[in-house]
């Protein structure tokens, strides 16, 4: 055997490498089948972070399609109802940079709740069909009203209404929603020591 190897070194080297590679390749092939991962579980975790307003402002028909798109590599800064907090949470989850909210998809606005002016409602059910979370109570030719606690403020009911009787009212700050704010960040223009004011004067 050793004689053959010294006689045909190149062939021996090639055969050795192939002999090493083939069983490893077989092992990998077996592992690929054995450890196949079904579905896209990342999309579930991303979906859990998105605000579930199903408004479509991101350009996708709902939060789950956007979650699946993000899992496939889509940008994470397209959700205005989620705002900065959601972008930051997604960035933490996926260990990427947190870009600012993409302006072309909308701005982060104050939270709103839909309100139907009942005097003008004609009972056409168009808004009921549009609401993605079934937050509007009513039936054909019956009064429609918004269940305020379930409304996510997604805006989708406003357009279909033929008599334009739906308003988006901002949530008011009440005793229940008030809370302490972070202290203002430290200003770098503080004149803490005497020479600070002198330096400031010289700079001015």
């Amino acid at each position, binding site marked *: 055997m050793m004689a053959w190897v010294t006689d045909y070194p190149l062939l021996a080297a090639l055969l050795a490498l192939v002999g090493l590679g083939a069983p490893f390749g077989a092992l990998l092939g077996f*592992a690929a089948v054995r450890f196949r991962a079904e579905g896209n579980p990342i999309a579930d975790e991303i979906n859990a972070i998105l605000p579930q307003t199903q408004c479509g402002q991101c350009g996708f028909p709902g939060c789950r399609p956007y979650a699946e798109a993000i899992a496939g590599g889509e940008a994470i800064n397209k959700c205005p109802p989620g705002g900065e907090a959601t972008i930051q949470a997604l960035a933490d989850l996926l260990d990427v940079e947190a870009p600012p909210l993409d302006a072309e998809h909308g701005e982060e606005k104050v939270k709103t709740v839909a309100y139907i002016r009942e005097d003008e409602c004609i009972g056409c059910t168009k808004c009921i069909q549009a609401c993605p979370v079934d937050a509007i109570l009513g039936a054909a030719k019956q009064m429609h009203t918004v269940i305020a606690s379930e409304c996510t403020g997604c805006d989708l009911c406003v357009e279909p209404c033929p008599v334009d009787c739906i308003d988006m009212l901002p949530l008011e700050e009440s005793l229940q929603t008030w809370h302490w704010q972070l202290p203002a960040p430290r200003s770098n223009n503080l004149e803490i020591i005497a020479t600070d004011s002198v330096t400031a004067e010289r700079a001015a």
Partner: protein
Amino acid sequence: MLADYSILLIGAILVNNFVLVQFLGLCPFMGVSNKLETAMGMSMATTFVLTLASACSHLTYHLLLQPLGLEYLRTISFILVIAVVVQFTEMVVRKSSPLLHRVLGVYLPLITTNCAVLGVALLNINKDHSFMQALFYGFGAALGFALVLILFAAMRERLAVADVPEPFRGPAIGMVTAGLMSLAFMGFAGLV
């Protein structure tokens, strides 16, 4: 006997730490150390790969290459072995924790090109280790890598919210910190 293996381990983990003293494997060290959970995941993956690759490459060398006199093929065959082990690890990670797989991203297959892994395999040959010694050496190298990676990740997390001056923010202060850690670890010189 126990003393020998202990010395081997201490040497690999602290005295000749692969990242901070021998400066191998710096790419994942800087790239994966942003978050502690990611760093821990990466450490476990690298430990698995290093130990297995160290053992497999030792066996490949002594059972295949040396008997056939093909020692000159060791570099390429070690890379082959490491690539296979990394691929296998990647499949296992993707199945067991898709999030970790997504977060590690490209750094997982990059373990293949981690010079620490190839370095351990080649150093085993240079130092003429037995199989058990090679195994312990690989495991020790991985532990050292894991230790340093986790320490560094913890520090980087605190640096992220600290009052770092503008020019130093981001990777710059990370490099400075790594340099200081390296100085600290060089204090172990002469321990074994």
